[in-house]
């Protein structure tokens, strides 16, 4: 079923959305978060509901300004691996057989 609708302003320029909103909420299973509105050639308004999809924050880490600057500095001037890392690498060479 189409989710867009065409509404026509009355003589005073008002549009009624009550029944449309109820229908669309049932259809979408939730209230839309917004509408795209387009004026049609005959002066009516075409409404298309939008539902905001939460960005997949689970796969993005968003850094504060201070952390951003630390990270960029670290990328620019990468430090040498420390002793513990070098030792673990030597241990990996001894302990891991061919994969």
């Amino acid at each position, binding site marked *: 079923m189409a989710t867009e609708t065409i509404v026509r302003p009355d003589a005073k320029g008002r549009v009624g959305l009550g029944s449309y909103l109820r229908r669309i909420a049932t259809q979408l299973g939730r209230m839309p978060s917004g509408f795209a509105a387009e004026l049609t050639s005959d002066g009516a308004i075409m409404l298309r509901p939008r539902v905001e999809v939460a960005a997949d924050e689970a796969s993005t*880490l968003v*850094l504060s300004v201070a952390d*951003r600057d630390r990270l960029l500095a670290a990328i620019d001037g*990468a430090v040498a*691996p420390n002793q513990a890392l070098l030792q673990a690498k030597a241990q*990996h060479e001894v*302990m891991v057989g061919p994969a």
Partner: protein
Amino acid sequence: MIWTIRRLDGVADRASFQSTSNELNSWLAKQANQAQKKRLASVFIASPVDQPTCIAGYYSLAPWQIAFEQAPVKVTKRLPRYPLATALLARLAVDQSFQGQGLGGVLLIDALKRIHLAAQSVPVQVALVHAKDDAAAAFYRRYGFEPFADEPLHLFMAMGTVEQLFAD
């Protein structure tokens, strides 16, 4: 003892794995296979060479990205690609009966090596780890991972450091 490290397969006994973290045990037993099938994560397991069904330790890798709350033009101009392509070491655990033998460190190196190799084909700029608690964060700090000030359980290592580690 010598370990082999391989991609999680149907041979390994996932249900018997017992680290000190119930969450990481349960993820391996119930979700790891699906996560790998759906290409959300790659899971690697360490077994003693003569016991391929035994999982002594495991880690999982996933693609991630790092974005900034604020990215002034000056910053975005300098960055070849934004958000930053990131390789995430999401989980790492060692079975209790194998702890304290250096396997945790070996798994960490193995993960960094795979990230390093992958980055030669599909570049990434940062290696990131998720520590599940303070003790896990301390484990990673020991190896030079730096915690973010506002996200202390997220620790990073610049790929430049990883490259130096494997340069020879």
